[in-house]
């Protein structure tokens, strides 16, 4: 089952099969096969933990080329406000905007500019009496996917409203088309802080396709912009930011949403904290809350996997910056825009659960497999070392009943079999090489993972 687009890819040539990624994956989506990491697609939520943990930089993200800009007359850069936060203080907002324009864009749109619309809609939704509380924001696509595949009973708690980048895309599209621009002439490029947002654009939760035309990685973009920063502020670009608000600037940082909604709201950042919280929420152990902001990255989007700046200084710069902007309460929506139409574009029709952890679609067969796995577990050492290529003993047992692993993959079990003379030394070694690659265990001073390599 591969229903989601995945942005994260593994470069096999670079992967050294070191199990770092497998250990940190919150959904046990990674296995090592023939010495290389592989992703179980149905379980991947694109949170980027693997990419962060990889010492060999073997994970990469598919993105579009800036050359694509040439295809459009109106070239729009959609980017989250955290982009600005990455730069050192001495580089001004004006300078950053000018450098972005110099890259070839005609319009710059911080995605949180029209945030008022989303705030109002969310507030209305929270007022409705029949909604499942606590309501969970759909802001972070990694969290939405996580709920879909692992917490199916909580999908109804997700607020069916799209994220700021969708809103901003429709907002600018509508503004330009109101001025008589044709749709084909407009190219919308989203500068993404993470892999999850890419997947959200390529395969949105609802059914309608996204209006974004291209995706550019924030890290590449940052480097290019950095090189084009002018010595001095030359032109005035503030008209490009005319809708920006204090709340908008802080939206993608931690508590950006939760501080706006509900009497009782919680903000959680970091995917492992999110997992723990959802576990408790699903048991009904947490009660009395109206709104949950949950973000996969530590320090929310300031800590996105494609962000260059330090996440703490990024957040601080945004806090300072927000003081220069008025509150959304003081902003009026552009009269020429059709608010109803924008609202329609923001609704998600249905968020479906996709349980990625069932052993079998058929209950009887699933039960047989589970019984078998429980028997297998008795033989495994419970050391959770990962040397079998599965993240822990339980996962290995499950992989076995699915036909994706063998008893002999457990190195301790093999050792015992040798001790009991049930398997030859030669055979045991061949088994190891099969899992980890031929020659993997030869002495080699240049092997990745040797001393002082930053592992």
């Amino acid at each position: 089952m591969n229903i989601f687009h995945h942005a994260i890819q593994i470069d096999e040539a670079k992967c050294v099969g070191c199990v770092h990624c497998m250990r940190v994956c919150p959904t046990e989506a990674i296995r090592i096969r023939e010495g290389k990491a592989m992703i179980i697609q149905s379980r991947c939520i694109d949170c980027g933990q693997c990419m962060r943990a990889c010492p060999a930089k073997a994970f990469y993200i598919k993105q579009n080329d800036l050359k694509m800009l040439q295809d459009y007359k109106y070239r729009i850069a959609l980017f989250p406000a955290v982009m600005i936060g990455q730069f050192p203080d001495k580089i001004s907002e004006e300078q950053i905007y000018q450098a972005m324009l110099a890259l070839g864009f005609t319009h710059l749109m911080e995605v949180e500019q029209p945030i008022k619309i989303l705030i109002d809609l969310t507030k209305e939704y929270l007022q409705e009496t029949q909604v499942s509380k606590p309501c969970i924001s759909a802001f972070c696509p990694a969290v939405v996917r996580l709920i879909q595949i692992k917490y199916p009973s909580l999908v109804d708690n997700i607020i069916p409203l799209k994220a700021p980048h969708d809103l901003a895309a429709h907002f600018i599209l509508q503004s330009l088309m109101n001025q008589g621009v044709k749709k084909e002439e407009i190219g919308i490029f989203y500068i993404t802080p993470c892999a999850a947002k890419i997947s959200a654009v390529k395969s949105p939760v609802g059914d309608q396709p996204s209006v974004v035309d291209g995706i550019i990685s924030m890290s590449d973009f940052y480097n290019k912009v950095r090189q084009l920063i002018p010595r001095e502020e030359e032109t005035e670009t503030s008209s490009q930011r005319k809708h920006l608000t204090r709340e908008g600037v802080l939206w993608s940082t931690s508590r950006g949403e939760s501080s706006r909604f509900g009497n009782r709201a919680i903000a959680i950042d970091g995917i492992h904290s999110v997992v723990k919280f959802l576990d408790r929420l699903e048991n009904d152990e947490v009660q009395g809350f109206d709104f949950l902001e949950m973000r996969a990255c530590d320090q929310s989007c300031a800590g996105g996997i494609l962000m260059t700046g330090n996440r703490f200084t990024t957040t601080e710069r945004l806090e300072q910056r927000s003081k220069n902007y008025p509150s959304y309460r003081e902003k009026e929506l552009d009269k020429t825009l059709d608010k109803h139409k924008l609202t329609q574009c923001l609704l998600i029709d249905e968020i479906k659960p996709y349980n990625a952890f069932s052993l079998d679609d058929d209950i009887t067969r699933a039960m047989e497999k589970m019984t078998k796995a429980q028997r297998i577990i008795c033989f495994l050492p419970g050391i959770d070392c990962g040397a079998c290529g599965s993240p822990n003993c339980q996962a290995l047992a499950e992989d076995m009943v699915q036909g994706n692993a063998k008893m002999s993959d457990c190195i301790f079990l093999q050792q015992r079999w040798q001790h009991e003379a049930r398997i030859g030394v030669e055979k045991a070694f061949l088994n190891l090489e099969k899992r980890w690659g031929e020659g993997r265990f030869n002495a080699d001073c240049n092997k990745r993972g040797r001393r002082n390599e930053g592992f």
Partner: protein
Amino acid sequence: MIELRFILEGGDFDRAGTASSETKKILKQLNIDPRVIKHTVVALYEAEVNIAAHAYRGEVTITVSDHQIVAVLKDEGPGIADIKRAMLEGFSTASPKVREMGFGAGMGLPNMKKNADVLEVESTPGSGTTVKMIFDF
């Protein structure tokens, strides 16, 4: 058929919830309807907390077959003198200490009744209580 077993200690609120969490994980792997899982987990959690709050020790047995989940929680404890009364919303004998921890609203048993398809409570005052719940799917 799958069988799971857990041991609970009276007064141990930290561990109350282990049986429901573990059971939940297993039920998801068995691809059981999320709604049934939710009912089971919620009712089981209440029953676990009751052992932590009111009894000395207990044993939980969960059996999953192809059409239902049966949960039996057998404890050694003071037992319940008047089960009918205990089933009423708001009835509670929880100690002040337990109340301080946020329990003792007298909603546990009613909540179990709401979530389980069958709820049977048997008790011998002075010796212990057995709670049996069935969830059909």
